[in-house]
């Protein structure tokens, strides 16, 4: 296997799995899940092989791209079906195939009672293939294919149980909101082609050195819109909560670890654009900051364990976007947080799935409690993920989040202080709501509904959870050892650069840990040491009410987009019927009524017809008479 062909294998293997499983139909029910898992694992294997190949080369020569065939070539618009494997994409490849394979394994057991398990695995494989295409594409247009491909897979998986109308709606909502983001990506590509004349990463990078700031700002803002759509960032965040309608492994893989981080990938991949377009970069930071707060606030009020985790995901990606917006100093940290988050959040989602598995698919945390005793492994793995996400040293989240907070403060001036404080506040709130999840689920007294027999999940389910838990514990340290990841990514992001420190690193870490402790403490007081209602209390503060309604995001969308859209649709339908087609029908009716009026001249008397002929002859001859005058 040469390095060049194996790149295509990365994508082809899971894609083949999806195709085979979908085409084979019921015949594949027996072995479909195994094939899918095997293919995903072999793709991971290819990824590892590529990594070893890469490590064997000099740092400058590690990246390589490969042209498969000419995809679209019209005039000066030339896009090859090309793949690019560099230090950035290999991180994603391994994350996607690694976590993906684990989740495949988990799903074998989790979905074992579902009659459509084969279809589920087909979708999972499809997703892996699309996501790999997204991160391996060597141009914005190739990325776009993967970009919408993961959107499609996400749509299919969210709507996997689409016999429930609410789930079907959720999948549609996700797709449509993603499409708004995709539109941004379209615009970005169009602007890139119109102003720079190319859409490949290398071409744009080269051109961006001489291009106008206006053009780059335009591209940057549009890329941000795209990222916001895919990564559920403000203002396109509303779909993520509903996306939890999908089976829990899906939430773990797509809506926590991989797909939703595609926005971060896009922004970091386009670092050369944002570096040259400060306005766009500022917007990125603002969006990140808003979303991280937004997600955290929403997370505090959710009783549905998956929605709480989804809000947390949104918030954590906000951190990544924030970091990505901080320029060369932040890119690597964004990726680092992305990777660590991939581990701990996937692990926590799988844990949540495990809890649901044991609790008859109950998702309301107010109906949990004391599960620590019944699900020790789940508790342990979930707990490790919990420690990682809130940023307790030395767990993974501490390293990555701390780095982001630090970089945010280092952005300098008022901006730095604002961003840093926001990140700190976010960390505190994160600690609060994650502790709340932990307490409500595992440590508080039990508030089960009747007929609940919680039990530990089978081996195939807890094995992936354990692996991910190990990742949540160790990755942070591994990535930061000797600034490993930062240096690894330097060929992509350019020199990391040393910034003057606004505050000493140790101070920032201290502040972060303090914030976490405060958050945890409040949560403990509120939930561990006081009674929790099994029903969501009604007499809550106005803030809780608003947070429960996702800070009015749906109401906002409904009143700003959906209702006017519906009104507009009805208006157009009416206009088409009564005005446009009405005009046409009016012509028809006029002709008809004119006909029925003129019909009266047709008396049936042959002589009156003869008279008409005579008159016609007179007119004719008069015309000749006049013409020949």
């Amino acid at each position: 296997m040469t390095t060049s062909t194996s790149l295509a294998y990365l994508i082809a293997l899971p894609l083949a799995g999806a195709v085979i499983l979908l085409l084979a139909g019921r015949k594949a029910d027996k072995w479909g899940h195994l094939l899918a898992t095997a293919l995903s694992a072999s793709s991971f294997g290819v990824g590892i092989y590529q990594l070893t190949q890469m490590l064997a080369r000099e740092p400058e020569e590690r990246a390589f791209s490969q042209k498969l065939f000419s995809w679209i070539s019209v005039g000066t618009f030339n896009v090859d079906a090309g793949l690019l494997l560099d230090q950035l994409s290999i991180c994603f490849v391994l994350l996607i195939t690694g976590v993906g394979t684990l989740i495949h394994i988990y799903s074998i057991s989790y979905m074992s009672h579902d009659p459509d398990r084969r279809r589920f695995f087909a979708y999972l494989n499809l997703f892996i293939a699309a996501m790999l295409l997204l991160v391996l594409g060597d141009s914005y247009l190739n990325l776009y294919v993967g970009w919408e491909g993961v959107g499609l897979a996400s749509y299919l998986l969210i709507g996997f149980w689409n016999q429930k109308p609410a789930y079907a709606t959720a999948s549609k909502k996700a797709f449509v909101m993603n499409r708004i983001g995709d539109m941004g990506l379209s615009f970005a590509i169009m602007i890139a082609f119109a102003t720079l004349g190319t859409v490949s990463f290398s071409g744009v990078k080269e051109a961006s050195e001489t291009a106008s700031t206006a053009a780059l700002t335009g591209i940057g803002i549009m890329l941000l819109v795209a990222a916001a759509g895919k990564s559920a960032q403000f203002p396109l965040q509303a779909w993520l909560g509903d996306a939890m309608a999908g089976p829990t492994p899906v939430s773990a893989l797509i809506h926590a670890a991989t797909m939703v981080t595609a926005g971060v990938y896009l922004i970091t991949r386009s670092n050369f654009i944002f570096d040259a377009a400060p306005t766009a970069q500022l917007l990125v930071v603002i969006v990140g900051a808003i979303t991280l707060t937004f997600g955290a606030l929403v997370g505090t009020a959710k009783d549905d364990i998956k929605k709480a985790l989804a809000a947390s995901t949104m918030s954590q990606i906000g951190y990544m976007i924030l970091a990505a917006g901080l320029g060369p100093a932040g890119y690597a940290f964004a990726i680092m947080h992305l990777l660590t988050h991939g581990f701990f959040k996937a692990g926590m989602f799988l844990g949540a799935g495990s809890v649901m598995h044991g609790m008859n698919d109950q998702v309301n945390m107010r109906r949990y409690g004391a599960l620590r005793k019944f699900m020790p492994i789940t508790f342990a793995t979930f707990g490790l993920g919990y420690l990682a996400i809130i940023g307790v040293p030395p767990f993974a989240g501490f390293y990555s989040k701390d780095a982001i907070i630090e970089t945010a403060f280092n952005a300098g001036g008022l901006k730095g202080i604002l961003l840093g404080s926001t990140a700190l506040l976010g960390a505190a709130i994160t600690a609060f709501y994650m502790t709340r999840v932990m307490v409500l689920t595992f440590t508080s007294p039990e508030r089960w509904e009747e007929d609940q027999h919680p039990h530990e999940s089978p081996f195939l389910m807890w094995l992936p959870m354990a692996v991910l838990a190990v990742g949540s514990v160790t990755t942070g340290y591994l990535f930061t050892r000797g600034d490993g990841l930062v240096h690894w990514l330097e060929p992509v992001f350019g020199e990391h650069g040393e910034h003057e420190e606004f505050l000493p690193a140790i101070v920032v870490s201290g502040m972060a840990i303090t914030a976490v402790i405060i958050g945890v403490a409040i949560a403990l007081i509120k939930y561990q040491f006081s009674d929790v209602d099994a029903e969501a209390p009604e007499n809550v503060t106005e803030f809780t009410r608003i947070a429960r309604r996702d800070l009015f995001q749906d109401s906002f969308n409904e009143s700003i987009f959906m209702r006017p859209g519906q009104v507009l649709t009805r208006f157009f339908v009416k206009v088409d019927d009564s005005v446009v087609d009405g005009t046409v029908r009016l012509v028809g009716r006029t002709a008809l009524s004119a006909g029925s009026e003129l019909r009266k001249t047709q008396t049936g008397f042959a002589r009156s017809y003869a008279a008409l002929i005579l008159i016609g002859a007179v007119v004719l001859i008069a015309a000749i008479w006049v013409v020949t005058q």
Partner: protein
Amino acid sequence: MLEIQTPETIMFWVLAPLSVIAALGMLLVKKAVHSALLLAWVMISLAIFYIAQDALFLGIVQIVVYTGAVMMLFLFILMLVGVDASDSLTETISGLRPIAITAAVGFGGLFVSLIGRASLGRDAVGLTEANANGNVEGLAAKLFSTYVFPFEVVSALLITAALGAMVLAHHQRSVARPTQREQSIARFRTGSLAGVAGLPSPGVYARHNAVDVPALLPDGSAAPTSISATLKARGDMLESRSFELGEVDNTVAEEK
């Protein structure tokens, strides 16, 4: 160059007004038969015009075909159909007549004015040369060379028309003709027995060929059923009374 001889001029100025008057008369007379006769006059005039214009063959054909055959046919059909004495000349479709007359005056006026204005741009040639071998031969040469295809087509048309006329005029009986027996039974079935013996024969009078005089019923009134409906419709029925004898003189002449 065509020289028109004085006799032709005289002929034209005599016959043309007459034919116009005849044509107008055709419109104005009440009886269709009279119209037909007037039309025949017009056609004969035209035949004369044709002959005068060196169209000998056409002139003869005009007389033979039109005045001979076609007008005969018209009269024949008139006999068959048009027995309702005379047409009413009052117009039933309101406004039609003034419109028609105005249009016709306009038409004729414009037409005549156009002809007056038009010019071929060269002098009339005359047919002396074309008719050098005789008019009939000249026509024949044209008909059987240049116009042979139209000629054949027209002949086909003629045959088709003849067949068409036969088909149209043919009357398919839908019920069998009643036999004498059936007619007799039907007569008895009617309310009165008056008609049982058959319709009365016309009155028989020594002084008149009696088919147009109705017979008298026993009460002395005329019996309309005794004469042909056609005669009645035409108004050719005579009063029986005029043939009644006066007081019958029963006295025997003395001199005998």
